């Protein structure tokens, strides 16, 4: 690859990274509303007393919704990033395999275009479009993307809403409407806050957003480092 082409590709990779870091944050924030709606619907269907059991309610009923959402959105985002990366490298492969064919009035090579001397296609550096999965520095498991993000092995410590004997003792004194409020105002709020932190919490380095963004940054570093070789 010529030096100008390397510089050009480098810039495209940086812009690819910048674009997808923003995309990831924006998309997860936006789609998280749908996740919260699904979870709220589940909560509405659940008797209040169920919610005061131990972690098991959340693990059994809420966590599958959450994990499915994470898997779907992560795949969507990484696939979207991969598609853009494919376009960058495909364009390079295409232009490197075509002879120069300048149809404009300025003939920069003295007016002679020799098809026999067309640039040999595909320098080693662009022999295959790099894939985010293969370049990821995370641990790839049989479950693919989710394995990379470590979600299959991560234990999620759901907040045990209002657990504790003193609270339960007090429940019998509350009227129906107050119990409903308890569910909607307190439990939902707590759960929403927890999920927001798990998904897009910018100060949570293990949030889904930060994990996906780190992958994009790692891939960019690897590809640019390869250009310099």
């Amino acid at each position, binding site marked *: 690859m010529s030096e*100008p082409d390397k*510089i*050009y590709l480098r810039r495209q990779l940086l812009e690819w990274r910048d674009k997808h870091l923003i995309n990831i944050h924006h998309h997860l924030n936006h789609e998280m509303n749908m996740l919260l709606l699904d979870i709220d619907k589940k909560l509405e269907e659940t008797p209040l007393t169920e919610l005061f059991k131990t972690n098991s309610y959340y693990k059994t009923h809420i966590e599958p919704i959450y994990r499915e959402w994470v898997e779907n959105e992560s795949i969507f985002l990484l696939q979207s990033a991969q598609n853009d990366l494919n376009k960058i490298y495909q364009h390079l492969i295409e*232009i490197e395999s075509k002879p*120069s*064919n300048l149809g404009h009035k300025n003939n920069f090579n003295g007016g002679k275009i020799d098809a026999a001397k067309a640039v040999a296609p595909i320098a080693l550096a662009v022999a295959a479009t790099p894939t985010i999965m293969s370049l990821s520095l995370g641990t790839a498991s049989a479950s693919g993307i989710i394995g990379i993000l470590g979600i299959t092995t991560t234990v999620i410590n759901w907040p045990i809403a209002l657990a504790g004997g003193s609270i339960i003792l007090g429940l019998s004194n509350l009227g129906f409407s107050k119990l409903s409020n308890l569910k909607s105002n307190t439990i939902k709020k707590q759960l929403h806050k927890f999920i927001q932190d798990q998904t*897009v919490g910018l100060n949570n380095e293990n949030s889904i957003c930060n994990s996906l963004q780190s992958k994009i940054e790692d891939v960019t570093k690897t590809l640019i480092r390869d250009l310099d070789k």
Partner: protein
Amino acid sequence: MIHSIPFSIPAEFAAGLNDGSLVRIGTLLKEAGTGKIVAHVQETGLGQQLLNGSGAPPFSLLNTVSTGYANVQLGQLKSMIESLQLLQYANLGVSIAGIGVSALGFAIINKNLKKIETQISDLSKKIDRNFQDLFENELRDHYSQVTVLFEKAELAHALKNSQGEWKKISSDLADESGFFRGRLETLLEHDKFDSNLFTAFVHYLTLCNAGRIECLLLADELPAAHRAACTIGQNYRDLFDDITPFKIAKDLAQNETSKNSQYYSKIRKHLNKTNNLIQGIRDITDAAITQPLLINTLREHNISGQDYIMALKNEKEHPILLLRHKEN
């Protein structure tokens, strides 16, 4: 040929730029198909004067630059903006220290530096104590030193041993550039990103480096100019590559005290500004890493550094010229 140097004007490349067979990266035009270098984009002294006089802040979008100039200069500025747009520039970031080699003249560089010094002093009153100490103790010494170096560089034209003087000044400007690079590194590590301070330091850094290269070219030390340009390009990569619009927007949102909007909305708001800033920084970096290729072209054409700089300074008609690459 212009001033006996193989310059061309941007319009000659319009067809290739419009049909995509030519692409600009940094300050060079290359064939999209083969990656071969066709020409190097170069701002003349006229171009630098026009943009400096326009009063447009650094990193402004090109289509927002307006001016209160008289008609002749307004016409020239408009023509320059059109050339930059034809050459696929979107904002003024790259023109902070000149596109290609700087031919602004050291006296004018000093005027620019004084403006930045005033901006930084104003900023220092608004920021926290850590930076105030920095400013009071160190920055003023360095401002003075840089100003003196550019004064000496201007004076060197009249000296018998001007080449020796320019070589020494280039070396001293390298030290000053190192200082500002250090300040930028510190600023980037700080929790609170200040875009005005960042822009001012970038301005100082790029002007010091532009001065270094100009001095080496005036001293006809082209191999040294090439090596210095390579180092400068690598330094900019190390300094700027990891900065992303999202990171800066996040920092700005986290430090915003207003409770009126959600964190997510704050980030979105800041992204508009930071995208523009980062585009400018990327253009500056690309210009720096393609500058060694321009210097190589000068060597291949056997053009002396001094002749090149003087040709650019003396150009009164075209704000942007392109130096044709030497055919093999």
